[in-house]
């Protein structure tokens, strides 16, 4: 989809905004090939995990721009998870290696500027690791829930 189409979808969505359930909201940016399949496996295996998470699928962790993380926080997410293929398993051979460098730096910067690093999480989850996906989501949700109400961030109004 082009940016324009995304915008259009967003506008269509505006009309049926309802009070969201599942607070605190957690956004998971996942890669199409490993983590999404892993999450899918968890689903088809009827495993249960926290409904606070909303999964956004992208082709590869290499496509997950740190701006997405900022955008999620801006829009009110309490936690953001980025997850993709294990090193060496990238469908595009090296997307996750590149993104690892990016996130290492970005996470470092977030921490330095005073964002509570408990609110961002990175993981490698393969297509066969439905269990790992479930435990990561559940642990992350618990962690987010245990954070004090005004946990530090720099993206939303105090």
């Amino acid at each position, binding site marked *: 989809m082009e940016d324009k189409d995304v915008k259009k979808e*967003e506008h269509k*969505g*505006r*009309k*049926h*905004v309802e009070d969201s359930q599942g607070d605190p909201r957690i956004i998971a940016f996942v890669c199409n090939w490993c983590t999404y399949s892993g999450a899918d496996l968890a689903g088809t295996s009827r495993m249960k995990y926290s409904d606070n998470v909303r999964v956004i699928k992208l082709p590869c962790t290499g496509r997950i721009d740190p701006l997405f993380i900022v955008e999620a926080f801006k*829009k*009110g997410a309490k936690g953001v998870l980025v997850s993709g293929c294990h090193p060496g398993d990238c469908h595009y051979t090296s997307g996750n290696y590149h993104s690892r460098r990016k996130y290492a730096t970005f996470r470092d910067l977030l921490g330095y500027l005073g964002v509570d690093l408990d609110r961002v999480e990175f993981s490698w989850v393969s297509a066969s690791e439905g269990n790992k996906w479930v435990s990561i989501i559940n642990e992350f949700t618990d962690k987010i829930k245990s954070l004090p109400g005004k946990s530090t961030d720099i993206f939303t109004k105090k």
Partner: protein
Amino acid sequence: MEEKYFEISAENLKKFVDSIIADNFEVIAPTDKDGGTFYGKISRFEEANLDILLPKMSYKEYLLPKTETLLEYSFSGVDTEIKDGLEAVAGANEKRVIFGGRPCDAGAGPIMEKVFNWDYKDEFFNERFKNLTIVSIACEKPDNYCFCTEMQLSPESSYGSDILLKKAEGKYFAVVTSEKGLNLIEPYINLFKETAKAQVPADKDWKKLFEIERTKSFLDKNFEHNYFQDRFLSCIGCGVCTYTCPTCHCFDIQDEGNLKEGRRIRNWDSCQFGVFTLHTSGHNPRVTQGDRYRQRLMHKFKIYSEKFDKYLCVGCGRCSRNCPEDIDIKEVAKDLADMA
């Protein structure tokens, strides 16, 4: 109102400032912070730095905030609700005093007031401007970047100030030019001693380096002059000149919010940015930085005076002092005057 004149000792001036602070006035004065001197809220007289010529930024933000909410909106179902942002501005600045600014900064208010009222009335600006009380101090030693005298003001001008303080022999003379000024000192009038105009030291004879009319007449005739492209090759388009300028008032209007609610805001903007005039079609009337700096000169020294009878510049020299690439607007204005 007819001007009134008072005498006040340095000690009483301190008492006066401390008293108005005690009476819940927010006093904004040049104060040392962040590795420089800026206008900021002071909690006692000593925090004011009255020796500095000019703080790095002007106090424009108290008249035209860097971000102002014009309206707020919210959606419920298909309905949109709009809340007027003006309500929040009512009474703004009523208890705010700018203390220790210079005559150039004070002159900026009434000059900007013209563009905000020349047809449609911008009540956001008006409400703030109407209520803000300005107590300025006349300059004794302007520096090399100052050119208020050329800009039809002077280091001792009371234009735009509600009260102008002039230092003489360890004490101050207060020239009160408005009801607002009078109201401010009224409760503490025993600190002041009324005096006659003749007692106030006369203004010095400030010399002009060039005639601004000549600058204008050059600009009148030379829109396409090589000077602009050559001279401003060194301009990096940072916009510091416009952001620190007490009279630059251009702004941008933007909507910002989520799917439920948000607000329409106006933010400071600058003619030095390429996107300022960029059309949707991709056409941009001002392509080079030379074009953009020329616009700044034109707006300050030609356009505004033709339209509103005032130059859009008070000669504070902030744009020159703060320019990272050392473009000195006084030098430029003089160059243009010399070429006319």
